């Protein structure tokens, strides 16, 4: 049985986010915000949620190692900076301790009488939006593979790493499929790296969510991303089904033409590794 290892402090799992920072990520999505800004917000919120899941009254338990790689104008770079800039993957307690800044944001909450009131909440920020240059996807996949080969060597009994790749365009440094295949062949005793791909769109095309075959995909680029994506393991199929998606054991971890809401859902599903303990 693969993808069943319990996640514990002695055997954590890893989440590595690969974020396209090419110039087109500066295009606006719904509202005034660019794709890069929206992805950065969702990524920061996802990191915050992962920290929250690991936080107990006595402190943060290191169930996860987390990394972010951005790729664009300056090639591939660490998405974290400051105290987190020295290496790619960090235990989640280090992520908790080192946000770049903590913003005060407002959210609307029920006032108890049927209305809504604004409440100030803390919003930690680790990753800031960038959009500039080309799409060196091969270089990004190579950097991810290098980081994860080393991680899997050190964690042979762990639930395997999950790579969540966000992109809005075609690779500008060559065909990424072979490297994606190699990345998916890295693994632990519990299974191979999960590569989940999401294609972000600023237009109104209907999203294609977790397809089970190439049929119905609109073009060779969509088919390429499909072929690069892992099959969803059983527990992620179940989690996606609970969220209302029509998925089965043939479904791939791939969303095409994702809008803002789909990005949020994709990150939520992709970071639901098996049971923490």
């Amino acid at each position, binding site marked *: 049985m693969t993808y069943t290892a319990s996640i514990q402090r002695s055997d954590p799992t890893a989440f590595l986010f690969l974020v396209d920072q090419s110039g087109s990520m500066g295009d606006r999505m719904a509202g005034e915000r660019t794709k890069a800004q929206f992805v950065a917000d969702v990524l920061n919120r996802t990191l915050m949620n992962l920290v929250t899941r690991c936080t*107990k*009254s006595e402190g943060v338990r290191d169930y996860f190692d987390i990394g972010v790689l951005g790729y664009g104008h300056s090639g591939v770079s660490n998405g974290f900076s400051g105290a987190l800039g020295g290496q790619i993957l960090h235990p989640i307690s280090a992520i908790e301790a080192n946000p770049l800044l903590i913003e005060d944001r407002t959210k609307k909450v029920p006032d108890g009488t049927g209305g809504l009131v604004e409440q100030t909440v*803390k919003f930690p920020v680790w990753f800031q939006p960038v959009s500039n240059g080309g799409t060196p996807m091969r270089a990004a996949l190579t950097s991810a593979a290098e980081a994860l080969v080393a991680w899997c060597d050190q964690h042979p009994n762990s639930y395997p790493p999950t790579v969540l790749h966000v992109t809005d365009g075609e690779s500008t440094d060559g065909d990424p499929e072979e490297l994606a295949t190699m990345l998916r062949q890295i693994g632990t005793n519990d299974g191979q790296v999960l590569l989940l791909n999401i294609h972000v769109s600023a237009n109104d095309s209907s999203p294609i969510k977790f397809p089970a075959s190439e049929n119905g995909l609109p073009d060779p680029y969509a088919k390429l991303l499909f072929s690069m994506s892992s099959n969803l393991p059983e527990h992620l199929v179940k989690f996606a089904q609970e969220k209302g998606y029509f998925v089965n054991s043939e479904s791939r971890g791939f969303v095409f033409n994702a809008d803002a809401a789909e990005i949020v859902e994709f990150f939520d599903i992709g970071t639901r590794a098996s049971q923490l303990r």
Partner: protein
Amino acid sequence: MFVDFAASVAKDSDAEHLNEDSYLFSLDGRVASLSDGASESFDSKSWAAILCAISCAGLGVSPESISQAVKEYAAIYDPSTLSWSKSMAFERGNFATLLSCEYNKERSEVEVVAVGDSVVIICENSELTRRFPFDDPEQFNERPELLSTRNDLNGFLNDPFFNTKHVLVSPVSSRTAVLLMTDAIGHWCYKAIAERREEWRLLLSIDSVVEFNEFVLESRKDKVMKIDDTTLVRLRF
């Protein structure tokens, strides 16, 4: 009603203080309770202990009693003094199962209230007569309803069918054994029963905490029992 045996093994057997299962018995021998605090919770150990205390105080499992438990939990922490991550984890809420077993001596019966995936089996003369709230081992893979420190997530307590789904009344006698179990050992037991393997009967006779520890650790090693906090309480009458 008396406790014939009770023992718990933490998921990390070297860190018993991190065990988030809780069990308690009322001094008058009327109520026994067991709660399994969820791992992804800020302080489910305290929450599980409060739920057991409310149950053993004879307050039952109702919107009112759980609301009182929520208040007791909220009094432990001042969110304004917590770090951003602890504050968010606190607000996210805690989650736990609850088995509350109340003995009615006059009527020679027990009323079991079960919320979540902690389970009870009832045996007469060492033969299985009832399982509750699950019927088969596959149900342990479903996402259970849990009691939360957030009242807004406990709406199922107001469900008109709450009693149908969550309450079992069963006659008991001096020949009855009632086993209360958290999910890891419950799943192991249900699976053994479903596969007609007799080793589940060990739970009716085991009387040494050391032996129980060895049994759990061995079962984990053989990958036949999930690595999780594991608690067994055996009641007799």
